[in-house]
């Protein structure tokens, strides 16, 4: 981990929201894109925080404080970026949620913010969403893309059930699945489907134009 990532993580752990914000501003002024900031700085800082816990140097309570601070900063960052964002509306809709019992939503939030930055209309439904709720929302709002996320191995069990149910949707939205376990295991084998498994946030850059242009995303 580079020293900037560690410094950012320290700010989060001590709840020093202002110092962390200064660091984000530096990144913005250095010309970094949101994608780079989310992936290289914020994601890595959270992973580093996980390492500190494994080394018995911090407690889960510290992780809670750090994540709450991080969440706030993501919102503030996004607002700041939107002020001079001249992207045209994409006239596309995407909704995002975590599987039932899954509380880790920061990665999902970054994905959702990236879509929004590209002019998409988004709905961020957050952590722990039961399937019926997802289906109701998807049927009434008819998003073009549905993004789901899970982090703990335990929630992976429910993945195939969610995907099977979402594939039944009449308007057949594209399904994106993300989370830290995607690069580690092959989940596509337990689902028959066309769902797209995202290993790294930057992969959505490749998919976004396809969703926007072609109706046929089942490629």
């Amino acid at each position, binding site marked *: 981990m580079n020293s900037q990532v560690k410094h950012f993580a320290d700010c989060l752990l001590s709840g020093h929201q202002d110092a962390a914000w200064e660091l984000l501003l530096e990144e913005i002024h250095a010309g970094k894109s949101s994608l780079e900031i989310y992936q290289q700085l914020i994601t890595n800082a959270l992973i580093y925080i996980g390492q500190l816990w*494994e080394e*018995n140097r911090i407690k889960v*309570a510290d992780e*809670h404080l750090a994540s709450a601070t991080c*969440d*706030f900063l993501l*919102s503030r960052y996004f607002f700041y970026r939107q002020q001079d964002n001249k992207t045209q509306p994409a006239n596309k809709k995407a909704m995002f949620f975590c599987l039932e019992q899954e509380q880790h939503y920061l990665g999902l939030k970054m994905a959702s913010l990236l879509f929004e930055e590209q002019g998409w209309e988004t709905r961020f439904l957050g952590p722990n969403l039961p399937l019926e709720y997802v289906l109701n929302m998807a049927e009434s709002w008819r998003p073009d893309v549905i993004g789901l996320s899970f982090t703990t191995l*335990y929630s992976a069990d429910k993945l195939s059930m969610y995907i099977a149910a979402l594939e039944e949707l009449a308007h057949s939205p594209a399904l994106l699945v993300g989370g830290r376990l995607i690069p580690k295991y092959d989940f596509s084998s337990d689902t028959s489907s066309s769902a797209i498994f995202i290993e790294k946030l930057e992969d959505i850059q490749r998919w976004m134009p396809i969703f926007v242009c072609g109706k046929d995303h089942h490629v």
Partner: protein
Amino acid sequence: MYAGRIIMSSIEFLPYPCFVVDQHLYIMERSQSSGFTFGPAMNFLELVDSESRKKAERLLKNGFKSAEGELKMATKDSPFSLFTVRINWHKEWGYIICTEKVQSLNDLIETVEKQRLRLSETNFELFEKKEALEESLRNIRELSGPFIKLSKQTALVPLFGTLDHLLIVQNEFRFTHEAAKGDYEQVIFDFHGVGDITEEGMGAFGQLISQLKLMGARSIVTGVKPQHAFVVNNAGVDIDASFIKSLRDAIKETIQ
């Protein structure tokens, strides 16, 4: 024999999940209460979540040293409940006690959840305005105490606005720094532009004056209005300064 039996079963009835393990963490003995919380296991590590296992090994197989740390463990209710696990070694046996962190953690989760909901309602436009406003207030406070050189020996600090704790705290470093740099003999604080004075403000002002005195500069206060008199005299600290009615008189007196 009898005493031995008591010792052998000594952890059985402890009201916590407790284990006696060997150096490889194989379970030799466990308390009854551990059976209400955890399923069966040969080795203690089987009860630990896969992504806490490395940590567990480092913590518990640490050259027979006592240790304590958090681990996520699979209980009968949840695949990863958070526990504080303590180990103490006696000869070749490790004595482990596990305490679940349910309640304190749930409280915490609730607070964080509330924070999250509040966050989703935060109006960032207002938030940014508030930050900008605070910044300009800071600037105003700095402008509210310019440090002016009148002569080689004398400096003037006209104060403006409310004399409160913040006004002093934000400027005191600059004042003392300037006073030291210029090696002034006296500093005149003019209260002519001061509106309200708070008690804490006067307290901080008193301390500032003592600091200046230590550096060899005496203070003179001018322009005190009748409505200031009460706070100035009752601030609870000695204001170690001479009071002169008008700035003009003070200047006359100091610059001859």
